[in-house]
């Protein structure tokens, strides 16, 4: 068997896609035009270069191919029709004159119709490669879709199929003997090499005359690679192992890290001093929690922003939300002790004589806040509301309060948990806000939520 590994291919791709050399070799050999399996599974966790490598290899091999990303397909039918369209397009590009032949663009509602249509559409000579990217995450996929796609190559001779999936489950394809290529997570050296390919510059937009001793490019690059190594050791290897999150952590920390250089306190090569000065950056985990707001746009800290924004809730809405939280997190049997003005001590039941036979069942206590919100009926909500509202407040049941309840529901601060069957105040609700928010809100309107909350 003539594998005929083009060594130049590996050499060419090695620099573009670092750290994936064995995978490139495997792919090339398996995808060689002469022979090779009809179906191939490429798997690996997120951001390990599966799609990039596959695409690059296919491009290099100069076989006609089409890539279909399941992420873009809403239904199975959508996936199939997009596949046909993509095959069409690849075929037309291949032989421009035959465009009319493949223009017949048909509907394709099931997998059987798909196979027929595919047979018609595919160019009769030469090997064609179909890549299903992320097929395991296809929306609305029937359980037979994947096995059927895995067998496409058996039915159509000159077709080979590559399935790119995250985790290869053992019985995913219902067919043994399919070669799998694993893309393992990058090691430290590989990750650093990749991140160093696109270094951030020291001072992005400032012209060189602004800073007198403008650092040279190689200095900046040197600093970037050292910095990335430090980030990997401190945060990356534990919490941001994949390339995308590692890169985002690096780019987030880069600006505060290099600030002393721009100020002129340190030179570019004084990495050790910079590390000591900025050690707090690598100790805190703030960079790991994702936030869509870039820090420079919102100078205030996030916690105060929540409270401040929620302060805009009108007076009684705030009380309603607090009441909803209490109803969700307090057990109903304790309502009497918390919310009645003259709470009578309930008569304690006499405990049964404890004999060695009657083992006491241990009370397993879990903090109710950890259990998640419980559903409660509207009647209870209104009762708690009128109990905690300051004297002379409004009564529930009026249009104002009911309107507030509807608004809170629409804002997603409380969610509906079920409808009462025509009972008065029977529909169920559930609070959908966290403790911090409720406490802040309660304080803003003068209500200490802790006083009413069961431990």
């Amino acid at each position, binding site marked *: 068997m003539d594998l005929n590994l083009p060594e130049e291919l590996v050499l060419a791709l090695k620099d573009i896609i670092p750290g994936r050399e064995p995978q490139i070799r495997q792919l090339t050999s398996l995808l060689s035009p002469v022979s090779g399996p009809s179906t191939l599974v490429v798997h690996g966790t997120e951001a390990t270069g599966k799609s990039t490598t596959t695409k690059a290899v296919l491009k290099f091999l100069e076989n006609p191919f089409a890539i279909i*990303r399941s*992420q*873009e397909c*809403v*239904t199975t*039918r*959508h996936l199939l*029709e*997009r596949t046909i*369209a993509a095959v069409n397009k690849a075929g037309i590009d291949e032989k421009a004159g035959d465009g009319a032949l493949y223009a017949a*663009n048909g509907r394709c509602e099931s997998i059987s119709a798909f196979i027929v249509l595919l047979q018609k559409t595919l160019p009769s000579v030469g090997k064609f490669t179909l890549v299903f990217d992320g097929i395991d995450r296809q*929306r609305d996929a029937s359980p037979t879709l994947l096995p059927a796609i895995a067998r496409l190559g058996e039915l159509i001779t000159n077709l080979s199929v590559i399935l790119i999936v995250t985790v290869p489950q053992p019985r995913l394809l219902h067919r043994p003997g399919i070669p799998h290529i694993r893309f393992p997570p990058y090691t430290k050296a590989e990750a650093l090499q990749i991140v160093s390919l*696109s270094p951030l510059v020291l001072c992005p937009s400032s012209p060189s005359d602004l800073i007198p001793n403008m650092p040279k490019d190689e200095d900046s690059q040197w600093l970037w690679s050292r910095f990335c190594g430090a980030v990997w050791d401190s945060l990356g290897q534990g919490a941001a192992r994949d390339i*995308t*999150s590692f*890169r*985002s952590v690096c780019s987030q920390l880069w600006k505060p890290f290099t600030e002393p250089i721009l100020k002129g306190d340190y030179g570019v090569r004084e990495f050790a001093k910079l590390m000591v000065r900025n050690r707090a950056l690598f100790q805190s985990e703030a960079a790991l929690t*994702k*936030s*869509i*707001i*870039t820090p420079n*746009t*919102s100078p205030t800290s*996030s916690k105060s*922003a*929540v409270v401040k*924004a*929620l302060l*805009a*809730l*009108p*007076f*009684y*809405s705030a009380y309603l939300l607090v009441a909803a939280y209490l109803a969700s997190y307090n057990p109903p049997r304790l309502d009497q002790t918390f919310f009645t003005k003259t709470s009578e001590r309930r008569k304690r039941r006499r405990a049964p004589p404890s004999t060695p036979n009657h083992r006491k069942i241990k009370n397993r206590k879990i903090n109710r806040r950890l259990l998640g919100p419980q559903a409660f009926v509207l*009647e209870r909500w*209104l*009762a708690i509301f*009128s109990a905690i509202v300051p004297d002379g407040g409004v*009564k*529930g*049941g*009026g*249009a*104002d309060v009911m*309107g*507030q309840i509807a*608004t809170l529901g*629409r*804002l*997603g*601060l409380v969610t509906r948990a079920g409808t009462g069957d*025509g*009972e*008065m*105040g*029977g529909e169920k609700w559930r609070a959908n*806000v*966290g403790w911090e*928010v409720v406490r802040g809100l309660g304080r803003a309107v003068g209500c200490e939520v802790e006083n009413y909350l069961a431990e």
Partner: protein
Amino acid sequence: MTEYESCFIYKPGNIEAHLSDERPQKRRKQPPNSNDASSQCDKATFLPLLAGRERTESAQRRYDLFEAAWNPLDRSLNDVLTGHYTTIVHDVASFVKNAEANPNTQELPSGLIVGAPNVTNQSSLTDAITRQIRTSRDTVVVSLLSTQLPNLKTALKYINQQATSQFDGNANTNWAGRGQYLNYDLQMLHDCIQSQGVRKVVLYLRDTEGFDESLLSDLIDTFSSWMDRIPVVLLFGIATSTDLFQERLPQATLGLLQATHFEINQLDVNILFKTIMTPVRPSGLWLGPNLSRSILQRHKEFVQTTNDFARSMKYLYMTHFFSNPLSILTTNRDDVGNLESILQHEHFEAIRTLPSFRRYAKKLMDDGDIDSVRRLLDDDRTLLDAVRTNLKISETSLREVTAGIEVLTTVQPILSLKKNATWSELYILAMSGELDGSSLVREVLLSIKKMSSDSMHGLITQLSHHLPAINKISEDLSKLMAATADDPAPLRSEHDVHHNTLRTTVVAQKVELSKQTAALSKQDMEYSKIVNRVDTVLREYFQQSFINPQDLFLHEIMIYDAKSPYRDAFTPRPRFAVERALSSPHDYLGCTCCNNARNGLSPTQPTAAILYQLYLESGSQINVSDLWSAFSTIVAAEDPEDEEAEQQRNLFVPRGDIKDGASTNVTPSALFSQALAELKYMGMIKASRKKADHLAKLAWKGL
């Protein structure tokens, strides 16, 4: 179909007609035709008042007056709103213009528009933003509402439709009609924007909270995978806060967004209120203190949007013109001249019953002018003349009240007072006649007396716009200041604390404190004179303007202060009404038989009401047998006036229940079952699962 027929034959009336058209026409959703509604509104008019004797022309005139009073206000309210939102609209538009996707990071540029926690208020804002963005040619805006989009498929379909339909007009390209792609395939959008040269597609999610979390993340996911082909900018309208929004989305989705934050400041309701109360063109109507207070209070305590506020104001204006026949005297239109032709005798009778007319007449009597009172009572023409002159006077003085408030609000920020009262607070005080001589005005006057010359100068320039009388003083002050220009220290008046020193003297081993006023320099004396003049002018001015509006003759025509129509229309309390009807039915029935048992049970009451009162006394689990015995003792009570109760009860029992020939005496057990069924129907009880033969109580009174 009756019970003896086993089947029935359907005979369509016109078979030919049915056969002729092969397919029944599909019903299409049509947008509500706005023209129809408005044309109906044009014809609308008010009902004739004065016990139906009012002429239709008068009713029509009241309607016209209402329109003339409200429409300019509506416009100015809109102007205020648009002016308020201008900056944010421009910010968002420029953000959209400059937004560029970062090819390295797969992050979609997105703007978070965080507003006050109400949903509908944003509609005017969102429209403005959409309009502003649409002005640039190469941008497509699709605005999404959560109610329209239950799932991803529908959402994408909707986006495709909306985006491509904007180009349907030119170059006969009907993208949706081509059938080349599935209608939720974004390839369609891609082709469309490529051929039309669109550089940005803006998706505006108006109410982000309403969207399902999974739909949101699916949508973001899909568009981020299309990012290299479709340049999408997302705009999120957020009513709560950015952090709550972030908490709802999964981390993976958050990584796909790169957001910029826009904060909308809620428009202060005081500004809106002031806009309405001080219109450019006088509307001839003022709101009374009680009503204003309750409206503003309600606005503060509950979510009430600016639109709601405008709506309730409109309702109040309409109620005034709808329900007050004398509102035709309102002078917001120029054609006051032909009043004689419109007014009829009933109008004059109505004027004579007004409390303010009585007060007016009494005052004339006290002055000894009995003849004119007689003439006012007898002669309609004399009354009309009096009304005319007095209306003008009253209106002018009301306008002076608002002008006086304006002066107060201009003066307040210049002085360093502990707390500046808002315009509406001052208005409420002024309209209830409490502003003149109030501690607030006194404090203002006192601190003016203590002002130094340089701040006084600023004050006088501010005031000169409102008070012409102060111009003379202003000249004098300028002269005085020019004379002392070489002295850097400002002049101080005699009332200033700077001139008082505390002196301690020790006399016979006792410390004595004594206040001593330092001798004033000549300039200071001069200045003190000026200060005193300013004080007098202002004091007189305030005294003149802040009259008690309730003392004005015909104030009923110009001041609307009825709270109950507003309360009934905007804050109904259905639950309270049901509970009250059941617990004390006499309040609604008004019958004589239940009168003596106002607070208790009586057999004459409707059975559901009796049962409800028993129900209120019980706990959360109700024993049916106990309930029945209590019920039967009340209903079957042997009373001398039992007959009456009997009749009453029969009223509430359907006739069908009483069999022919049987006595009309319905058994208590039937009544009990009926009452129980009624309570169940109202959703107050259900069968308990905890105990046999028990009912669970579901509703508590007074919640």
